[in-house]
């Protein structure tokens, strides 16, 4: 299935883009993260996920659906 991945902050540096549409085999967020961490050097960067603009708890494993927008959000630094 296809999901849109959005990267922010330091993750833009590492992933090399702000946003991409990606075909994934992952059925849930845990599988997606394992897949990304296997491919990219992102394990040292703390981040949380938002799916369709809804924040996901760190321990939660959420099922993915076709067309979901998954954002990877490093620590905030506003203000």
């Amino acid at each position, binding site marked *: 299935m296809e999901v849109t991945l*959005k990267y*922010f*902050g*330091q993750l*833009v540096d590492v992933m090399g883009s702000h946003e991409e549409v990606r075909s994934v085999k992952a059925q849930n967020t845990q599988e997606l993260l394992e897949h990304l961490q296997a491919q990219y050097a992102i394990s040292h960067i703390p981040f949380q996920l*938002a799916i369709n*603009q809804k924040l996901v708890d760190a321990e939660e494993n959420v099922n993915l659906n076709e067309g979901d927008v998954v*954002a990877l*959000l*490093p*620590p*905030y*630094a*506003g*203000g």
Partner: protein
Amino acid sequence: MKKVFIEGPISSAFIGDSIAKHQSKTSIGAHNIFLGQVRADEIEGKSVAAIEYSCYEELANEKLHEIREEAFQKFDLICMHIYHSLGTIKTGEVCFFVFVSAKRRKEVYSATEWIVNQVKERTPIFGKEIFEDQSHQWKVNS
């Protein structure tokens, strides 16, 4: 929801203008304003020259809307405004402007403080500290 994000620094003229706009509201007795200014911090011998701000705007606007609603519930306010810069903000420039107005002064200080802290904690804004030698590091709120 009013526009929060501004491309580039928040000018002193913009702030002065916002103040002027509140002078027709004669129920207001007290304003409190917080301004965040980019500091020339020294980190491991290098000086910060600018911060480049970006954000997840859709989610940020949702969070800012929540903060706004909660602020009006918690504090007895007549008006509140939040502005935050995006893009490159040089040291000495203002990147964050919170403006609270109320009938009386009592609550305005803590209202501003609360809003500033909530924006910092809950709003997906990211900052890249750019040093004078063009190297950078990603800022994390303390």
